[in-house]
């Protein structure tokens, strides 16, 4: 739900940046409900399976991300599990849209996966940096490490890593300049091309959930987690805003350039950061 709210607000911000008024902030909710209420077509049960699997995976991922230090059950916010559960989400969506039969879909997926190869590497490096610092692969611990006020947030301690992470997360959320997956004008929205009605509705929910936990991860990593849910959500929104702002003004990369970029710039930043940390 929160994710949808974010998207709605995001649209306003984009619009404002682009000198438009933009839709009302609850637009996204309306869209989703409308879509879910529509009759939709499907070609094969795999599409259904894919959509459900995708959303299921993403929800499962979300459950594992600590929000303001709170988790539904004490899993410790395992980083690897989160990463890999998210992949199931991806796989489900990819599978579902492939089964739709429209070649634009796999085109988009191919790009999306290529991009994923691009951003996973620097992201993994960032995670490893933090794991090495805390000695634990638990997000709650990493968040807890930053307790004690504004100045002990990781964004302040490791600014280079933060910049690198921002770039990476931009790609994770498929915002420009990294939205090759959707690329509305190039490949007819890619994976979304054959999704109609509640499939599209589910897709939007998927996107919302993804944004939610991606920003949550960022907050846990860099912004100290948050003492309660309100501050947490605020911080999440802050992250999202940055992403949207960049999105509204930038064009799109070519895939190979995108991957190359992701492998060089953020990775270099992180390596420098690591060196700084280890040599100190």
């Amino acid at each position, binding site marked *: 739900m929160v994710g949808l709210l974010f998207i709605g607000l995001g649209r306003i911000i984009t619009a404002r940046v682009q000198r438009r008024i933009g839709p009302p902030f609850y637009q996204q909710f309306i869209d989703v409900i409308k879509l879910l209420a529509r009759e939709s077509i499907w070609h094969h049960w795999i599409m259904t399976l894919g959509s459900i699997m995708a*959303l299921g995976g993403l929800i499962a991922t979300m459950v594992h991300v600590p929000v303001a230090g709170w988790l539904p059950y004490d899993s410790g916010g395992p980083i690897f599990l989160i990463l890999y559960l998210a992949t199931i989400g991806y796989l489900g969506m990819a599978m579902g849209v492939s089964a739709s039969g429209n*070649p634009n879909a796999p085109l988009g*997926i*191919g790009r999306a996966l290529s991009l994923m*190869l691009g951003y996973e590497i620097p992201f993994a490096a960032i995670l490893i940096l933090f794991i090495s610092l805390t000695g634990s692969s638990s997000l709650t611990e990493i968040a807890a490490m930053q307790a004690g006020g504004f100045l002990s947030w990781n964004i302040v301690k490791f600014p280079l890593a933060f910049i690198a992470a921002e770039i990476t997360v931009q790609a994770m959320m498929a915002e420009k300049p990294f939205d090759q997956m959707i690329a509305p004008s190039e490949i007819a929205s890619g994976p979304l091309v054959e999704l109609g009605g509640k499939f599209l509705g589910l897709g939007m*929910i998927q996107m919302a959930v993804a944004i939610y936990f991606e920003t949550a991860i960022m907050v846990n990593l860099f912004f100290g987690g948050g003492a309660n849910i309100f501050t947490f959500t605020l911080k999440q929104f802050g992250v999202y805003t940055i992403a949207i702002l960049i999105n509204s003004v930038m064009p799109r990369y*070519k895939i190979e350039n995108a991957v190359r970029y992701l492998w060089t710039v953020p990775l270099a930043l992180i390596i420098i950061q690591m060196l700084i940390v280890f040599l100190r």
Partner: protein
Amino acid sequence: MISIGTMIILAVVLALITRVFLMKHKLLSWVLFSAYTAFSVFVLLKLYGNWNYFETMNLSYLVGRINMRPGFMNKPLGWFFSFFVMAMSFLNSFFSMGFSKSIHSRNIVPHWLMILAASLTVFFTKDWLLFIIGWETLGWASFFIIMGGKQKKYKDSMSYYFFSLVSGMLLIAAVWMIGIKFRTLNIHTTTRSMIILAKNTPWQAFPILLMLTLSFLIKSGAYPFHIWAPRAHKSAPADFSPFISGIMIKFGIFGLLLYVIPIVSKGYAGYSIFGMPVFAWVFSWLGIITSAIATVLAFSENDAKRLMAYSSVANAGYIITAIFLGTALGIKGGLLHAFNHMIFKAVIFMTIAAVVYRTGETDMNKMGGLAYKMPITFMTFLLGIIAAAGIAPMNGFVSKWMIYQALLGQKHYFMTVAMFFASTGAFLYLYRALHAIFLGQIREVHEREVKEVPFLMQIPMWIGMILMFGLGVFPGYLLRPMMPLMKTFGSSISESLNVVQGSVGSLNTLFSTVIFILGVVIAAAIFFLSAKTHKTPMMDNYTSGEDPEEWNVTPNKYQFSYGFYEPITKMFAWALKRSVDKAYFKASYILKIIGREINMIFTDHNNWGYAALLGLLAMIIGGLFL
């Protein structure tokens, strides 16, 4: 109590019988095979826990000054590998029974039985001599099986055999040096002596260890010896590919775990780097390099079998990296991944074989949309690649997680990042396979002819699916029996059913799976509670509701498969230009030319004088300098 020796001899006898009498009766041969493997699984189960069991055969060989009485001992490491070999062969036999009706199949039972006999020998042997015998037998038996594939050409098989020979020669040389040094060929004793030697005088132990490691790495398909893997997989009969990928690559791992790893982790007093002996560190990195290169090579691959072959090589790379870390967690992760890989790779290859059974094709660019016709196969393949990519909640995730933990625990951060690359890459090419074969649009010819595989062939697929999922949720079912195995490596952690311990965290697989299922339920709820759906054929949507047949044209089918990852392959084009493949080609070409020239020496009548001179020179120079 049936002895191991009996099992081996039984296999050989059965192999002879099938070879001589039953070559034409494929089904009967497979039934025999099935019975044998089932029987051996039973025997093995009886042997579990009986770790002090050993037997000696009544033959005595005098080799040089070493008097040997060959025998077998039941140790956990050998037991586990044997068990998996037999169990997977058993599963495969059902599949092959159905597959044998296809025109593409050949009767490979006799050679497979020989391989099983050789495997038992290698896994349970007490001394190195039997090990060598089993090793070499594996080589030539596989040569004949691999050759029996669809093409029935021997070039690819020869590539495999060449590497097998090199591995064998290195092994023989190393074993002899061990024998001469320690005056015995008993594996147990020589391990202990070797540890002492490595502790005190590492320089003496080094060449032997190096030769052994290389020998085993070649068999595992590590870089730069990975050439044979894609070729052998491609040429082998489709129902043997599961075995090659799952089992044969693991023989090298077995060898490493049997001899090299204990020595390296316990006593090697050479230089150290990052808390690991340099020797181990180099090979850990070799494993990573193998994974990375195999992954990149897989991106541009168009043949399903070759793609999966590269995937196997990459997975072998993970295992190699993990076990060379030397820590208990590393070895556990590597071993678990080895066993998991056996299961999921075999399953994947079985599905590919099923596709071959129905379509006769392995070129992915010629397929598409088969899931609509072969749903079970599709589901199996899907679960298989989820496991292969290391995604929860399948079994591949648990072992990969452990390997990551092991790496991080030893603070090998760069290795972890590299492994991430390989892992993500794996997801990429596995998805590509899924899409190109099973999803997208289906060709007309397939639309008409293809249906699901017969039930007999589905049995192992179902079992595989259950295994992958089950072991993913309850890894303890595998980890618990592995406890005695881990004890031999010095770890006595007691395992619980669903919580796995790592070095920087722990994993509760049951909970995560439950959460996942909950998520799916919620998603399904949203889905089904919303408006109803309406099934339309794919082409309607695609052609915007028009009907091309009205205008006497066929619908324009377009399956996106070729050049799926073109951007990425373009990025790596500079690296792919220098390939090890080409190096080998060049070498073999040079050898051919040399051979021809030498041939000329003998047949060309004018060369006698030169030849005589050459001989004389050799004698003189050699005598002076050597």
